[in-house]
């Protein structure tokens, strides 16, 4: 099963993602901000990161940029309530591989993951 790191400052959203993912994935970490996301990524080297954008201390786009700079092979899917075109372009520039907007349903999450990390 692929290893997944969840980065989201909302406990509610972390729980929701865990419920959706835990059947087919190993959740190797749940973090609340961009700094922790970068550190935990280095430590656990997961197959996939589900990354929120608006987080305290450091946002998800900056964290994605650093993860991708260190490891261009990393797989990062933005998982955010932000639906702004300019933000999506920034996410692409930072190297994001996919973009899911909240609120989401399980099938769209699975589909996005399948596109980025095919089983």
């Amino acid at each position, binding site marked *: 099963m692929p290893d997944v790191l969840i980065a989201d400052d909302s406990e509610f959203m972390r729980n929701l993602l865990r419920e959706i993912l835990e059947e087919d994935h190993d959740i190797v970490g749940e973090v609340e901000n961009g700094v922790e996301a970068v550190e935990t990524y280095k430590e656990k080297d997961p197959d996939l990161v589900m990354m929120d954008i608006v987080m*305290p201390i450091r946002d998800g786009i900056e964290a994605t940029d650093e993860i991708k700079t260190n490891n261009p092979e990393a797989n990062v899917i933005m998982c955010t309530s932000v639906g702004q*075109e300019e933000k999506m372009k920034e996410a692409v520039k930072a190297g994001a591989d996919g973009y899911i907007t909240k609120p989401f349903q399980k099938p769209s999450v699975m589909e996005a993951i399948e596109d980025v990390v095919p089983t």
Partner: protein
Amino acid sequence: MKVDIQSLGTFNRLAHEGAEEATAAMCQMTGLDAVVDVTKITLMDRDDIGEQLRDEEYVGVQFAFEGELAGDTVLVFDREGSRTIAESLIPGGGASDSMARSSVKEIGNIMMSGFIDGWADFLTATIEHSPPEYVEGTGEAILPDRRRPDSDDADDGDGADTSGQNTEQIFVFKSEIEWVGESVSFYIYMLPEYEPLAEVMGRHGQAQGDAIPVDKLQVFNEMTYDGTQRAADNVEMMTGIETEAEVSQLSFAPIEDVPKQVGTDTYVGTVVEFTGVPSGFLMVLFDEDSAVHIAEAMMPIEMDADGLTGQHKNAIEELGNIMTSGFVDGWANVLQTSVDHTPPRLVHDMGRAIVDPLAAQVGQHQEHAFIIDSEMRTDDIAFGAEIHALPNETELRQALDELLVDRADQTDADIEQIF
């Protein structure tokens, strides 16, 4: 047509002073005690005017006026208030309907003449008004022909209907007057026709840098309605509760009246600061019952605890976050820019105390403020949510300057195209 902030301030003060004079006249005649609580100028759909009146029974006095300004003005009392007035004018007068009616008509006439005269004096022009007409009705039906019969064919071509939607936005001056020590209120609505008012406003402003393009305010208001609808769609997706955007309006008021936009009840919700163009603060607020209800609808498992728990608050925090994005994303996409916001801060406090620190922060740089108010409701269960945004004036003006009216419907981003 551009209107500067100063002239909006002047018009607001004028309406407020008019309402105070009218109220003073009433107090003098009846010996009752009342104070003008809030006066604000609101840009909204003609069809939504009076939404605040809900389903109560009202009586009032209505005039048409014409001249430098044209339109209608109405003084609205709830039934209980009208009886109190009748009783104080003629002891025993509250008991008889016809006595109550003539008392209201008489006092309304005196109050509203003072109100109109104030405007005429300020404009150094004459404003004629029709004889007072006694009106009664339930809720917003008390207000005059809200759907103008000529609105279908009257295309004035001056941006009043830029979106092509079948709505008409107008400026409304509304004062809320409170009886001291009683729970009844009365209202003064002034509904001027858009064109003459915009012209008068334009004339009274100085053509300086701080002018706001009025037609773009209307477009902005429509974008806000779209944003509210998107936030309502998000609520529906997360909870399965069918939710509709109800009202969205843009008001202008002195900064110290801003906290009065929200009630004194306890609310639960989220607040963010947003930066970029526009910038400011955004609140998503639920009354406590709605908060518990909506949070439970979001949770996969049944809750057995009563009241608002930490888990409820977590759910509200995330819902507030998603509703906030739904609301501001449209602005960013139309303006082709990005609007960042802080992570949501959960609040659980008296409504006015929540708005107060935000008004103070905005009030460090400006004396008046625009307030964007939206509401959503559902018929199924008791559920209501309010979204209030308090933009900084400088960035709002910049946003309006940069707003391309043609792009007003481009509120959605196309993910497929980008990824």
